[in-house]
């Protein structure tokens, strides 16, 4: 069967599965969406959280970023997993005990005001919408390759599918659909990794293969990779960091506390039966996430190695990478490169006119290397590879069977769609439930609330789709900004709500506004106002990344510090917290007396 037909078949089968489950769980449940009771088993909840959580950024983009960044890519790995420790200890059990449906609900009660809720909703909308942009970029990449269209067209098709998927169906069955999506995406991720690990190291377990020997040589795989990339003028794979270590440190903090502050993840812990389960459920979620996250570094390193070996034959043999016949002839390039060229995510430009592809680091600072490249007649790197294609192209680069390639396409779509659905749910419930029903139009009927939610979802898809065509960064980069926004606004306010009995309304509101404004101001300065190209204003700072070299993606951690500082300063200047709220905080701290779970 041809690759195209196989891809249609596998993707079609998985979509049929999701729709079937959505229909089945919908038909089996007569309970309404917001009704309490039932409860989801912690292990299943962990799987659903895994799918909800692992987005296009994790599946499609992350390994490409790590492959490109090397050691420093660990900031994604640690940042997107370490937050679960914070979530399990600092937030999940207490929010579960509190027992409401949405995160703004908590703000409303704990900070006894509508203003706190409105600010929380705004923070939630900004963070979630930014996050969906990253998903749409990923969906665009997957569809453009799968249908052979441009990535803009891919985004439009993706928008249409997410629209049907999230707006018309799947509201109630979303948890079980996500369990199925988890299974698809984890198989799609690990199967090619196992094949490739076997090819390169003889070890079927990718986590061990990465630390294993490179087949046909006496070198460790990582040592071999270090050797190759330094030969081609790149930084050493096992030590290179983006920016400096301070930036890596701050970036990791930002992703961790952002993870703990993202509403669509937090609401997952409202669904388990007991406070006790909220603690262990975070552990189960992390187990399922860790399967992908510990495989990703192997995928990253092996994809990088395979890419260089494809373009430069001397990499494999250990010969002279500068030899004229070592670089691959453009006309003899493998089929996968032709397929990706159609999408515009892989580009070749013959700068020295020799009909061969030279791929190296032409911005290297190493004079000796540059002299060698110059002597070889290289006139600049001729291949541009978008990081986002690495995972999807990986099985093709390694010549794996067609069904594996098709499975990866299905996995990427499962990852993007499950997260987009979860986010859209968070956005629509914030608008219809928290904003309209609870504040502005208290007599809104249930039907009206549902309609408002759907309209909000549709608008969010259009905005995200439009921005997804002109993303500020790679999918993983955009998502990192969303985490920074959650980290600087929602996480500190939630934490202070539980751990400080004296934090009052004024302090929390001022802190959230300060954190969010600070972070957005810094991010927009570098990526454009609302991420629109050409509106960057970093020049007013004098130079880019002026704040101790901290990149806009990492600034959320500093925003969180601003939030905490402003909140405590304002608290000390305003009226103390009412005694009944202080008593409520005491009550939230002990598990006894938690009500039934929220069903969704």
């Amino acid at each position, binding site marked *: 069967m041809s690759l195209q037909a196989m891809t249609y078949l596998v993707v079609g089968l998985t979509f049929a599965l999701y729709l079937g489950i959505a229909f089945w769980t919908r038909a089996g449940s007569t309970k309404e969406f917001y009704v309490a009771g039932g409860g989801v088993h912690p292990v299943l909840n962990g799987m659903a959280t895994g799918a909800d959580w692992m987005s296009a950024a994790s599946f499609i983009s992350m390994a490409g970023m*790590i492959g490109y960044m090397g*050691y420093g*890519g*660990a900031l994604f*790995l*640690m940042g997107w*997993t*370490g937050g*679960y*420790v914070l979530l*399990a*200890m*600092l937030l999940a*059990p207490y929010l579960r005990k509190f027992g409401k449906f949405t995160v703004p609900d908590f703000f409303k009660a704990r900070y006894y005001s509508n203003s706190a809720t409105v600010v929380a909703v705004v923070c939630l909308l900004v963070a979630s919408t930014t996050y969906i942009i990253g998903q749409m970029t990923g969906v665009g990449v997957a569809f453009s390759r799968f249908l052979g269209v441009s990535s803009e067209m891919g985004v439009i098709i993706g928008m249409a599918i997410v629209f049907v998927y999230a707006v018309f169906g799947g509201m109630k069955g979303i948890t079980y659909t996500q369990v199925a999506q988890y299974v698809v995406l984890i198989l799609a991720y690990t199967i090619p990794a196992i094949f490739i690990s076997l090819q390169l190291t003889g070890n079927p377990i990718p*986590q*061990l293969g*990465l*630390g*294993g*020997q490179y087949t046909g040589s006496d070198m*460790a*795989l*990582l*040592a071999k990779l270090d050797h190759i990339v330094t030969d081609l003028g790149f930084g050493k794979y*096992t*030590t290179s960091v983006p920016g400096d*270590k301070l930036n*890596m*440190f701050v970036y*990791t903090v930002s992703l961790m506390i952002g993870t703990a502050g993202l509403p669509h993840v937090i609401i997952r812990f409202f669904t388990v039966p*007991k*406070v*006790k389960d909220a*603690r*262990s459920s*975070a*552990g189960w979620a*992390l*187990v399922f996430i*860790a399967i992908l*996250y*510990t495989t990703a*570094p192997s995928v990253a390193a092996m994809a990088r190695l395979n890419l260089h070996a494809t373009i430069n034959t001397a990499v494999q043999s250990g010969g002279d990478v500068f030899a004229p016949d070592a670089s691959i002839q453009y006309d003899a390039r493998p089929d996968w490169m032709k397929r990706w060229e159609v999408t515009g995510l892989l580009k070749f430009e013959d700068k020295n006119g020799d009909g061969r592809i030279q791929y190296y680091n032409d911005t290297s600072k190493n004079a000796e290397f540059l002299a060698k490249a110059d002597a070889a007649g290289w006139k600049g790197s001729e291949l541009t590879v978008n990081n986002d294609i690495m995972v999807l192209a990986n099985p093709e680069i390694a010549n794996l069977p067609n069904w594996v390639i098709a499975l990866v396409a299905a996995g990427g779509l499962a990852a993007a769609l499950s997260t987009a659905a979860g986010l859209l749910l968070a956005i629509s419930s914030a608008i219809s439930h928290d904003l309209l029903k609870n504040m502005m139009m208290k007599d809104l009927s249930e039907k009206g609330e549902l309609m408002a939610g759907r309209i909000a979802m549709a608008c969010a898809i259009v905005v995200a789709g439009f921005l997804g065509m002109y993303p500020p960064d790679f999918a993983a980069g955009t998502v990192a900004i969303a985490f920074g926004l959650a980290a600087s606004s929602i996480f500190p306010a939630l934490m202070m709500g539980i751990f400080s009995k004296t934090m009052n309304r004024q302090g929390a509101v001022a802190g959230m506004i300060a954190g969010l404004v600070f972070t957005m101001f810094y991010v927009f300065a570098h990526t454009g106002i609302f991420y629109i190209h050409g509106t960057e204003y970093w020049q007013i700072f004098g130079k880019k990344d002026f704040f101790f070299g901290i990149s806009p993606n990492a600034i959320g951690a500093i925003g969180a510090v601003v939030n905490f500082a402003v909140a405590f300063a304002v608290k000390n200047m305003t009226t103390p917290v009412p005694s009944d709220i202080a008593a409520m905080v*005491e009550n939230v*701290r*002990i*598990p*006894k*007396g*938690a009500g039934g779970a929220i069903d969704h």
Partner: protein
Amino acid sequence: MEQSQELYWKKVLGLIRNVLIVWFLCSYGAGIMFAGALDNIKLGGYPLGFWFAQQGSIYIFVALIFIYAKMMGKIDKDFDVAED
């Protein structure tokens, strides 16, 4: 009752602090700040600092959550505040 609740909260905060210390040392410590020095030690084909950053800290995070959940369960029982 008032006093035992205060003691309960103190125990909880103590546990959280201890878990956070391990959490910090294995990720920010071994994975970032001291990664360079640890890289001189090899774990199979892995430089140790690189291993902590890209593998080890994730395994430790998983273990930490389950250890925390178990110990919290015990504290809840000791102070009789567990759910029925």
